[in-house]
């Protein structure tokens, strides 16, 4: 019943923006969802269609995010996510740990008081208020309207100020020449790079590579702005944490059980 009410709210919301083609589509999608939910059989469609039509510009209507449950990750699980990201985006470990890029990494944590140990994947947190974007002199570091923080490799001058500014150490500088790049993830020597949240996949309605590689339920990807999404529901219902919440950057990546 509650869910039906929420979906009716959504229908109302979509009506407001139904002046264009996209709005009509959204309205129909919302209505269909409301009808499907009417019998109260399911709460929400967890396998929601994430894609926007290719001809539609990215909008602030969505804000993509992740919820990472540290309790569900072993070291090997995190490594699997790292490997998936490497395979998807074409970066690799060349045996130079100081200079090799790491778009996503395994961070091992040990509570100094309780001695509890665990590990989790750490990557760009896709902040709503990203310091890397603020400091970038050319605007190469930018945030898409849907919250994904990216680097425009064409205008990155390699000043590394964004790396100085990022509280999460999420960015890497390409220290040497690169071969065998992926077409969808262009990279370049002398520029800075980081997790793209697999934006090329997200735009096709798919999930980021790390999410697919993670154990079931350990990483949830979705739209933080869509109250009906599994991600938004989880964030609403379970205790989640933001890394360096004190900085008030409103990261799109949230954690549980750390």
């Amino acid at each position: 019943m509650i869910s039906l009410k929420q979906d009716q709210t959504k229908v109302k919301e979509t009506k407001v923006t139904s002046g264009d083609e996209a709005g009509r589509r959204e309205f129909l999608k919302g209505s269909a969802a409301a009808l499907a939910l009417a019998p109260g059989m399911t709460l929400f469609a967890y396998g929601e269609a994430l894609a926007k039509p290719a001809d539609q510009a990215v909008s602030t209507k969505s804000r993509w995010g992740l919820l990472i449950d540290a309790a569900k990750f072993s070291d090997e699980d995190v490594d699997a996510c790292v490997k998936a990201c490497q395979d998807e985006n074409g970066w690799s470990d060349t045996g130079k740990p100081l200079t090799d890029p790491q778009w996503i990494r395994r961070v091992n944590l040990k509570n100094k008081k309780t001695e509890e140990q665990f590990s989790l994947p750490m990557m760009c947190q896709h902040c709503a208020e990203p310091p890397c974007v603020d400091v970038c002199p050319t605007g190469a570091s930018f945030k898409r309207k849907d919250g994904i923080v990216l680097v425009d490799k064409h205008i990155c001058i390699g000043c590394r100020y964004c790396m100085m500014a990022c509280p999460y150490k999420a960015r890497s500088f390409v220290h040497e020449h690169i071969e065998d790049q992926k077409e969808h993830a262009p990279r370049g020597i002398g520029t800075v790079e980081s997790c793209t949240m697999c934006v090329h996949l997200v735009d096709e309605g798919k999930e980021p590579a790390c999410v697919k590689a993670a154990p079931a339920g350990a990483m949830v990807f979705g739209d933080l702005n869509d109250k009906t999404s599994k991600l938004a529901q989880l964030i609403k219902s379970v205790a989640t944490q933001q890394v360096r919440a004190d900085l008030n950057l409103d990261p799109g990546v949230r954690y549980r059980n750390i």
Partner: protein
Amino acid sequence: MAETYRQLREYNNSFNILLVLHVVMIAVGLGAAFYMEHNGHVVTGMNNQIVWGLPHVFAIFLIVSASGALNLASASSVFSKLAYKRFARLSAILAIALLIGGLVVLLLDLGRPDRLIVAMTYYNFKSIFAWNIILYTGFITIVGIYLWTMMDKTVARFNKAAGWGAFIWRIILTTGTGSIFGFLVAREAYDAAIMAPLFISSSFVYGMAFTVWVLITMCQATGHRLITKEVSQKLRELFIIFIAAMLYFTAVHHLTNLYAAEHIGVERYILWSGSVFTYLFWGGHVFIGSILPMLILMKSDLGSSRVGLTSASILMLLGGMAHIYVIVIGGQSYPLSLFPGMEVTSTFQDGVFGNYMPTLPELLLGLAGVSMAMFIVGFALKILPFLPSPVAEDQ
């Protein structure tokens, strides 16, 4: 007579040798930059934790010094201290030269120096770095105009206004340079508004040390006295005040950090962990760069002598490099605090102190920036009347 300037015409061979050495250094530095750009930063000591290395130390040191090099010109135009007017042109051209030297190093250390045009045409006005690009180019322009008003009688009536403009601009410029660090909320060693006044006070010391160094070099090269005893005494006194101001801001910076529990770790690392930064801070910045020159300068006769001023200036410059090194490299070396209360490890140097060993190409590029500045000054002295005319031995 006190206001006359002369073009450098008569000089001994040491000047030519110096110029040639600077040209060689510039060529070597450009070669080093090409080597780094061709191979990528993998051939430097920089890495994904220490992202700004020795070239940045040189660049920031030169840029901060550029602002301070304008001291003597500002003193004459803005504060009407006519005793310094003879040095105003040299002071201004040195300021421009040091800034260019610093910018060249900064540019050549970019990952993509070939994209200079991008840096000049794409601006993110929320970025203090972008503002600095405007401040740097503006500084060169304003000080250039200021110089023009000093040298062309037809525009001399604008000299005071240009002097004020340059003075205000240099304060803003160094505020901007300090704010590059002050705005970094993520780094515990930075993220403090006091970085701006700290940089301004440091600029007064380093910039004037460069000015005195150049003046004394030119005394050597021309075989003439260029500084009167009166001015030597004044310089000595100014240095003492500026060093005291710099030490004051340094002390306040660290003491306020020590008050905040979250910053105690980084302060312990810099001030008494026994790391290289501890030695550079106490030995380099505080002792060599501040206390030792202060001791020399406090002895009136020694402090105002050519030997005293030269040695004090060199010590201040060496200490200045140590100071900027501790700020730039030390601040990055301290690990980011991602998970307070946790022991953090990873394959990406989380939770460990970052190691950085500068490589030869980085050093050569940095030194080339200094040489670039010195060559510009030397060349300018030869083609235009920037140098103060000699004073009598008894003056």
